[in-house]
């Protein structure tokens, strides 16, 4: 059973298009994240949600809009895609317990904007 799953795995699209990436976790976690990993392999946090509430928005352009319909899902919608959006996007989840936190990452969505 996949703990954190993302769809699609690959996404190739043209500049200016709008696309969505979906993430689901079956771990019962209450916190979910979106990360972006660029070609230089730096992994940067974009958003963090706790119990469906947005907690962190790391100066991400407004073209990126996360949505959490429930604690098990965190989707990412991207409007007006730009070349610089090409990257691997990782979803992650964790359970916020005092003293311990481990993030579980999904397999990633490889986005290529042409």
């Amino acid at each position, binding site marked *: 059973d996949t703990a*954190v799953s993302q769809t699609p795995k690959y996404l190739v699209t043209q500049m200016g298009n709008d696309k969505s990436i979906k993430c689901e976790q079956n771990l019962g976690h209450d*916190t979910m*994240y979106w*990360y972006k990993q660029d070609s230089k*392999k*730096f*992994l*940067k*946090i974009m958003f*963090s949600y*706790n119990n469906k509430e947005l*907690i*962190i928005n*790391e100066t991400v352009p407004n073209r990126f809009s996360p949505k959490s319909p429930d604690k098990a899902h965190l989707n990412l919608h991207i409007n007006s895609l730009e070349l610089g959006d090409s990257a691997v996007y*990782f979803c*992650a989840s964790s359970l*916020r*317990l*005092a*003293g*311990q*936190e*481990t*993030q*579980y*990452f*999904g*397999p*990633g969505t490889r986005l290529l904007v042409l």
Partner: protein
Amino acid sequence: LAKTTQPISMDSYEGQEVNITCSHNNIATNDYITWYQQFPSQGPRFIIQGYKTKVTNEVASLFIPADRKSSTLSLPRVSLSDTAVYYCLVGITGGFKTIFGAGTRLFVKA
């Protein structure tokens, strides 16, 4: 959040013990130290976490000196499959903001 500094890359041979040191001079009292491993085309995977002294699990050991300004991830008897990027993270456990540094690219040779 505390900034971390790690070597950019390391080479090793199969069967050797590998130690990767991370500096975090500005670590705060409540910060835990966490290490993740990332294989190509995969998401990062939790390896080990600690607050002070030594932590050991089935995969690695984590050594943290008394001043906690650095930590060392120890991988015993590495194999080719341990070739990956290893990230050291420092932050309040349960915090919503996680900062990944550049990581250390470990290359294990036969």
